[in-house]
């Protein structure tokens, strides 16, 4: 529903393609659009103001590089400033502080439903698996129905021990018992999950302060939803001022929220965003990625992330070989199958598209053509059901062969036909591109492989 920032800015800068330094008036016009973009991304207004002032100072007078438009230049400056603001001031602060005498407590706090319990289990699993820590969990949520049971189940799922709830035991007492157990049984880390609470609720805030004093945690993590609106500043400020947080965990980054709350909370507390939740599963947690969040705030997609991911799976050599072949106009079904394999290695199609700028439109087009991960898997299956000879000589694939291939791949003859047609079109296109001498380097033959026939290019 939101126009992407680049689209907006290209409008403004259309008239000023070839200019030297960025002029104040141009920058101001651009920043008005950026202000709106940030607000639509739920960055809190006071934070937007500070940010815009800072960027203006940086941008005015900068020389526009020859290869980019003024609009792109401003976006780049804004993007870099966002990344800088989102990143922890001290890179050391990015990890969890679990050094010192064991057991160290991690206290999870936040509003109702923000993801504290799930995140507790995710962090526990991560500490066990990556850092080889001995971790114990305890639920201090004596209010929400079945909250303690939820953590019990998650404990079973992750193989992390959880304190057995005692009927009627209050949060501070539970924390004390958990720390005592942690000491006695030699745990490194004790994760204390708490009930959700509103910063306005004095009694509940006092309770969590008391827990804090009892457990003396080395980390107090504020768990907050990436879809939070303008209230993010209030909530982060209150929790930080009253309870004292050491870091922030941003949950539901897997949603299509623009995540401006991250910037608000980072700014108003000065505390680092340490982790982000990327799904409902107990493995869906990652270190905070400022680039990814900055990209989504600006609605630009994580271009850097995509390129890096592509670099991991597409072997440079293969890409070059493919590019060479294509330039000669040879693009066999084997090459096409290889592309499908690489596509799959890069992760789900939705995941890849999510990282691309303007992805919404592409996604719609894909949806219309019913292109999804399943379809790619089916197409790959069709190619795998061909003989090597057939793959090199698609012309040989007659009616009876098509039937055999369809049966072998669990698809249908029309699907086989469609794939063959698609291959022909791609080969033709590659020949044309090859003649122009394009398509070098990493991303080589990739994007065309993603395009079904009839797609706008």
């Amino acid at each position, binding site marked *: 529903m939101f126009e992407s920032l680049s689209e907006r800015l290209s409008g403004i800068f259309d008239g000023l393609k070839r200019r030297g330094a960025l002029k104040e008036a141009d920058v101001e016009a651009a920043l008005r659009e950026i202000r709106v973009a940030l607000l639509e991304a739920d960055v809190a207004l006071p934070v937007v103001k500070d940010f815009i002032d800072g960027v203006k100072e940086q941008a005015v007078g900068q020389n526009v590089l020859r290869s980019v438009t003024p609009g792109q230049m401003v976006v780049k400056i804004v993007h870099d400033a966002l990344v800088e603001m989102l990143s922890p001031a001290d890179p050391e602060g990015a990890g969890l502080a679990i050094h010192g005498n064991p057991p160290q407590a991690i206290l999870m706090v936040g509003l109702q439903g923000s993801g504290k319990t799930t995140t507790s289990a995710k962090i526990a699993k991560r500490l066990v698996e990556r850092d080889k820590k001995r971790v114990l969990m305890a639920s201090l949520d004596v209010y929400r129905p079945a909250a303690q049971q939820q953590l019990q189940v998650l404990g079973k799922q992750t193989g992390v021990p959880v304190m057995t709830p005692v009927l009627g035991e209050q949060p501070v007492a539970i924390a004390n018992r958990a720390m005592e157990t942690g000491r006695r049984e030699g745990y490194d880390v004790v994760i204390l999950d708490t009930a959700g609470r509103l910063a306005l609720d004095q009694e509940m805030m006092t309770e969590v302060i008391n827990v804090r004093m009892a457990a003396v945690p080395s980390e107090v993590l504020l768990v907050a*939803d990436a879809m939070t*609106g*303008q209230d993010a500043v209030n909530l982060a400020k209150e929790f930080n001022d009253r309870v004292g947080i050491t870091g922030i965990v941003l949950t539901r980054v897997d949603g299509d929220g623009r995540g401006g709350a991250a910037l608000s909370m980072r700014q108003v507390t000065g505390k680092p965003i340490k982790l982000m939740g990327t799904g409902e599963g107990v493995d869906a947690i990652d270190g905070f990625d400022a680039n990814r969040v900055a990209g989504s705030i600006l609605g630009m997609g994580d271009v850097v992330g995509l390129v890096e991911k592509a670099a991991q799976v597409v072997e440079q050599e293969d890409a070059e070989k493919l590019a060479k072949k294509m330039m000669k106009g040879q693009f066999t079904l084997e090459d096409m199958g290889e592309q499908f394999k690489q596509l799959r290695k890069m992760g789900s199609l939705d995941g890849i598209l999510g990282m691309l700028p303007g992805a919404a439109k592409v996604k719609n087009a894909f949806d219309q053509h019913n292109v999804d991960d399943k379809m790619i898997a089916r197409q790959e299956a069709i190619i795998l059901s061909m003989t090597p000879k057939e793959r090199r000589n698609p012309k040989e694939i007659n009616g009876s062969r098509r039937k055999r291939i369809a049966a072998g791949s669990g698809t249908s003859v029309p699907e086989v036909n469609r794939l063959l047609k698609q291959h022909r079109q791609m080969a033709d296109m590659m020949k044309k591109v090859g003649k122009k001498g394009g398509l070098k380097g990493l991303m080589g033959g990739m994007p065309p492989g993603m395009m079904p026939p009839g797609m706008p290019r």
Partner: protein
Amino acid sequence: MAEESQGWLARLRSGLAKSADRVGGAISDVFTKRKLDQAALDELEEILIRGDLGVATAARLTTALAKGRFDKEVTDGEVREALADEIAALLAPVAKPLVVDGGPRPFVLLVCGVNGSGKTTTIGKLAAQYKAQGKSVLLAAGDTFRAAAIEQLQVWGERTDCPVIARAQGADPAGLAFDAVRDARDQGHDIVIIDTAGRLQNKKDLMAELEKVVRVIKKQDATAPHACLLVMDATIGQNAHAQVEAFKDAVEVTGLVMTKLDGSAKGGVVVALAEKFGLPVHAVGVGEGIDDLKPFEARSFARSLMGLDG
């Protein structure tokens, strides 16, 4: 009971007042004996943005406010009243309670929304209200995914003295919904409320799963579900638009419930949603307790939002 309703109003107001404090306060700063010029309007617009009303709605409201007042001396009170009136007028058409009486029996009510928005709690509160009206209610534990979600609804079943139909964790939610509607009919219940797992609206497979729940319910009763509530958290920002859009597409949402209005978040996005979608807002959640579900009232919501009494 009287004390209760006093309690919630006071709480709603004190919650909204806290959040409105900044709004209200900011307006006082801006408008004490001041000309309503462009600069003042810009500032006013920003104040509404801070209430999550969104850029477009804030602009529309300030433009409306300026009509006939531009360049005139205006006071703080006037501005607040006028804005509150404007917002109330926008909200009035969507402030509609959910009507179950006189509807089909069993009335099939499906509840959906993103993760943690307050679906299960709202179901518990609704069940309590219907029970108090003398209706018999069946609850269906359709969140078969989240850890202990079934047990959570079962606790609400005990609290409200309503039977709960449940399967093991991981069971097919559509199958459960199918059985629930059948049981409700066979056992002669007035209402069956079906809980669902929280899902983000951009997850295609999860939205398809929800669509399937509806499809399967229709095999029992082609006219069901008779209402489909989208539950939303008041802390939500502009992503609320995408949520309404996607859930509406998938399952024909018939109304909204906004929860957690007892917090400092304003839930102002509901104003923009009313403008854009015109979906009824049936109720608001103002606490975690069984009685903390109240009708959505346009005027008091708008006035509280602007930091005005009553």
